[in-house]
């Protein structure tokens, strides 16, 4: 009984340890806390993405393309095609932004496929206080990342709305759409409902974008943690018992299955984030 309680406390501790960010305080209030792990792995992912992309872009020639160049070009053309058939504005920002969203989110999500304890273990082995070596390596499993990107997209949506329609029309549409009315009295009547709906609409977009990605990645990470718990604390000595063997095999199979499935999820979520951003920006550019 006591050992079971201890094991359960171990499990809770293990899971909680995995869900705790490496935080650095920059000020007095809780807001001025920096999730160092998120920032570090975002920078690493960004560097990988930028270096790869700029490298291939610089090497791209108009001659016969090699295999890698063909792959990069087909991704670029795919994104460019999506943007061109949805977005009819003048801005040159949208296609590169969409590609960045897809590529960067995919790389950040990909960190989730690394063995769950590998990076935290490496961090703990060089940390002076291993029991306080917190590390959550997947930046997209941190709401700050997804919300930060979604708010970035939100700003771009507003910027495109203003630059494509002009400031006057942009603000007029706050009160004249989606309910359209004729005559001054009717217009006055629909102005407030329109304004409220517009505020809700604008607020919901970044929230739904960020929560969808965050939820998927957080849940995926949590499931990896739960799979890892199966043989928690089982040293080499405990592989004498049949139950440890069974759990070990079960852990291997479930981790393998979930990783394979997760490849689809990380790609799909990166794609959804990109395609919804394109759609939102395109809607902002269309006049009502």
């Amino acid at each position, binding site marked *: 009984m006591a050992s079971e309680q201890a094991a359960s406390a171990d499990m809770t501790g293990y899971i909680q340890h995995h869900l705790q960010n490496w935080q650095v305080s920059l000020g007095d209030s809780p807001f001025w*806390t*920096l999730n160092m792990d998120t920032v570090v792995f975002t920078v690493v992912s960004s560097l990988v993405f*930028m270096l790869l992309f700029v490298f291939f872009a610089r090497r*791209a020639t108009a001659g016969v393309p090699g295999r890698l160049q063909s792959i990069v070009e087909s991704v670029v053309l795919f994104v460019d095609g999506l943007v061109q058939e949805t977005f009819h504005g003048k801005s040159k920002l949208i296609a590169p932004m969409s590609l960045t969203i897809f590529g960067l989110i995919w790389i950040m999500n990909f960190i989730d496929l690394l063995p769950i304890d590998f990076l935290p273990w490496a961090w703990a082995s060089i940390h002076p206080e291993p029991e306080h070596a917190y590390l959550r390596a997947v930046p997209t499993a941190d709401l*700050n990342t997804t919300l*930060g*990107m979604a708010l970035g997209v939100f700003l771009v949506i507003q910027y495109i709305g203003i630059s494509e329609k002009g400031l006057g029309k942009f603000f007029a549409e706050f009160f004249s759409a989606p309910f359209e009315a004729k005559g001054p009295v009717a217009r006055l009547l629909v102005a407030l409902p329109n304004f409220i709906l517009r505020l809700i609409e604008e607020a919901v977009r970044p929230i739904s974008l960020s929560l969808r990605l965050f939820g998927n990645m957080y849940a995926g990470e949590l499931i990896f943690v739960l799979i890892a718990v199966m043989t928690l604390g089982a040293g080499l000595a405990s592989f004498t018992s049949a139950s440890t063997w069974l759990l070990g095999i079960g852990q291997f199979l479930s981790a393998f299955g979930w990783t394979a499935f997760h490849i689809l999820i990380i790609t799909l979520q990166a794609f959804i984030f990109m395609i919804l951003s394109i759609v939102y920006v395109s809607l902002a550019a269309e006049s009502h």
Partner: protein
Amino acid sequence: MDINVTLIIQGLAFFAVVWVVMKFGWPHIIGAIEERQQKIAEGLSHAERARKELADADARVADEIRKARAEAAGILERANAQALQIVDKAREEAVVEAMRQKAIAAADIEAQAHRAREELRSQVATLAIAGAEKILQREIDASAHGELIDQLVAGI
């Protein structure tokens, strides 16, 4: 799980990456792709033009061959006509020559016959004179009786 200053950092980092991609990557790739598309389009139009030129040249060659054939046929025809003409002319000349030869031969025969007749006539005259001499047993003056003898010879 809590929202903190990381949010702002992440948003800024996102824009930084977008900026780098937009500034240093995207135009190169799109530029290369568009340049290649243009090259391919040019290549296709070149190929099209070359094919048209080839077809033109083929047509020209066929035209030349047809013309040459027609010319050759014309030459052949003219040559045949000329040959016929030559043969005809030769035949005519041969006929004329034959006629001439025939006329010469006829004249020759005539002359020989005439000469033979003259000879015969003179021999007859001699014979007649010799006969008459034998008959008259005296010499007849050929010059005195020449007129008579001539009349006799003309009578033969």
